[in-house]
């Protein structure tokens, strides 16, 4: 049985285009708004959803995503509620892949076996856990693969050809290429350099390669999409969400549309880029 992630990447490839992967933080700015946003993302053009699991100390994330995580935590978000959110999403959407992205400690405290069972039952497709390199595969990666969840590994500009096989060994679903050395939402990646890096990774694996960190605008997304199987946009969506909040950081009627409008523009750009590439 092919997984939701594999099916979706295949469908996008059949359309001759890259997948748009959108990141939002679970529970930002509150559970109900966040769930409404989650449900609206596929209609707006998101092919794959990365759902951020809030953590107090997100070392690889920039200020935008850190602030989003703290908003969610202040509103009472927990890992259990994040899993519940996926469950609620699945009631109306059986096809859009959802990948949880976060740090290891909340999962470790929840209990790895219990987490994997609950996440799988809720309809989670994959995991990105930033602070678990291949050297710590026994912690979560191997049990996740056994439980039928894809473990998506980050590859970075510092991952050289000697190290790549180790990084790719237990990777499933797709490879997440971090286009810059830096935190989320920082520098803008150079599309040509990224294209070369994606080509390099593809020499080592048949998995799709999605590119993220620093992609903010439809133009940038289109440029990256020309040379990758997926484009991940996170901080820009989180910024759009934040800009829609009131002075007390509460949701307003503009919150969900603020994000979905940007997703729509990104989706259009990614589809347009594919046409250019195909001509």
């Amino acid at each position, binding site marked *: 049985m092919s997984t939701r992630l594999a099916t979706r990447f295949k469908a996008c490839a059949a359309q001759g285009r890259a997948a748009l992967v959108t990141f939002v933080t679970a529970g930002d700015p509150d559970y109900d708004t966040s769930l409404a946003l989650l449900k609206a993302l596929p209609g707006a053009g998101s092919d794959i959803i990365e759902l951020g699991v809030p953590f107090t100390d997100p*070392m690889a994330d920039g200020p935008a995503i850190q602030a989003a995580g703290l908003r969610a935590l202040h509103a009472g978000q927990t890992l259990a509620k994040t899993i519940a959110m996926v469950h609620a999403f699945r009631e109306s959407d059986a096809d859009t892949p959802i990948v949880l992205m976060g740090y290891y400690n909340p999962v470790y405290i929840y209990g790895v076996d219990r987490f994997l069972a609950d996440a799988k039952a809720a309809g989670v497709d994959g995991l990105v856990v930033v602070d678990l390199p291949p050297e710590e595969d026994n912690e979560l990666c191997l049990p996740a693969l056994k439980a039928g969840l894809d473990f998506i590994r980050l590859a*970075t500009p*510092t991952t050289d050809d000697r190290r790549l096989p180790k990084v790719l060994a237990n990777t499933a679903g797709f490879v997440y290429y971090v286009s810059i050395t830096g935190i989320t939402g920082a520098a803008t990646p150079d599309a040509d350099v990224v294209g070369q890096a994606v080509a390099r990774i593809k020499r080592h694996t048949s998995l799709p390669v999605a590119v993220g960190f620093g992609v903010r605008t439809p133009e940038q997304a289109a440029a990256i999409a020309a040379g990758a199987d997926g484009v991940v946009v996170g901080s820009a969506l989180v910024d759009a969400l934040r800009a829609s909040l009131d002075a007390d950081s509460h949701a307003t009627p503009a919150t969900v549309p603020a994000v979905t409008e940007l997703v729509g523009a990104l989706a259009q750009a990614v589809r347009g880029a594919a046409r250019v590439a195909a001509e």
Partner: protein
Amino acid sequence: MNVLNSFRTGPDENGHFGIFGGRFVAETLMPLILQLQEAYEDAKADPAYKAEMDAGLKHYVGRPSPLYFAERLTEHLGGAKIYFKREELNHTGSHKVNNVLGQILLARRMGKERIIAETGAGQHGVATATLCARYGLKCIVYMGALDVARQAPNVFRMKMLGAEVVQVESGAKTLKDAMNEALRDWVTNVHDTFYCIGTVAGPHPYPAMVRDFQSIIGQETREQMMEQEGRLPDSLIACIGGGSNAMGLFHPFLDDPDVKIWGVEAAGHGIPTGQHAASLTGGRPGVLHGNRTYLLMDDDGQIAEAHSISAGLDYPGIGPEHSWLHETGRATYISATDQEALEAFQLVSRLEGIIPALEPAHALAKVMELAPTLPKDHLMVVNLSGRGDKDIPQVAEILGTKI
């Protein structure tokens, strides 16, 4: 004790002390961490590196530091014979310089010219800024905004030494947040930057490497005690934030089962208040800042904010080797409150003419409690890890004195 039962052989090849330690970092950093590990192994085997270290420790740091018999404190407490290991006499005023010298010489070997560090009380920041000045390296120190305010003399000192001090406004604005920012800097500037970690925590090889550099404290203590008393001490006691001064004193004695070992965590306003920095006493195992260790956190695995009067102990974690020593029972971990530390700070200043830093004042507070219960021939060594100059404005304010 045979080798198999040794407490001194850790960590294993993956950096684990039992279940603790490891390498929990983003992929961007992994190649660099592996490279650092290789460079450190290489340096350890190189006589030239050792010679450079030895010379630096002797002529620049001012080692060996004295092992001083605190006669009046001993008399006052009326029990164990108390010795101070005088790390506060080191250049820059604390034990931190021992480790920084080792790491800076390593950074030079690796060709790195940009050094970053995090600091709580500022002692590690000052030590790093000092050695960067000494060797002509660019130095950036991350420090929580709260700590910048309460450790003003050290901030000024770092700036005088040519370092850039970056004030961190996120989170609780203390050491934990400074470490997050330093890690972010490292992820961003991984190609030319060396991260000089100040304690026995972080991803492998840092906990072992920093311990090795600090073990000079315990090695000297062994020799000095043999020379002065003709035998090993009966007990060792040191304060613990991340735990580098304590690990430095403890490690050379771990396989001497008759030497009792006490680590003193910061109990802040008291453990039951939840306002403390005692990770072992009031926390549980988790994963943060590159290692698995005891951490202060809530039921959802979110990291809690620590509290201590002492900026150097105000951290919600502890070095992984301490977590392991705690679980194996080789060392006993206790805690002292802000108030107890303040009282010890004042008592030792008056009795011994030595103004201790607020960090070792926590260890001294427990000396006051333990020493009277012990026989007069009991030899107790307390690590006087830093001097109190930097704390004087803060203590004066607490005591209601305007200076």
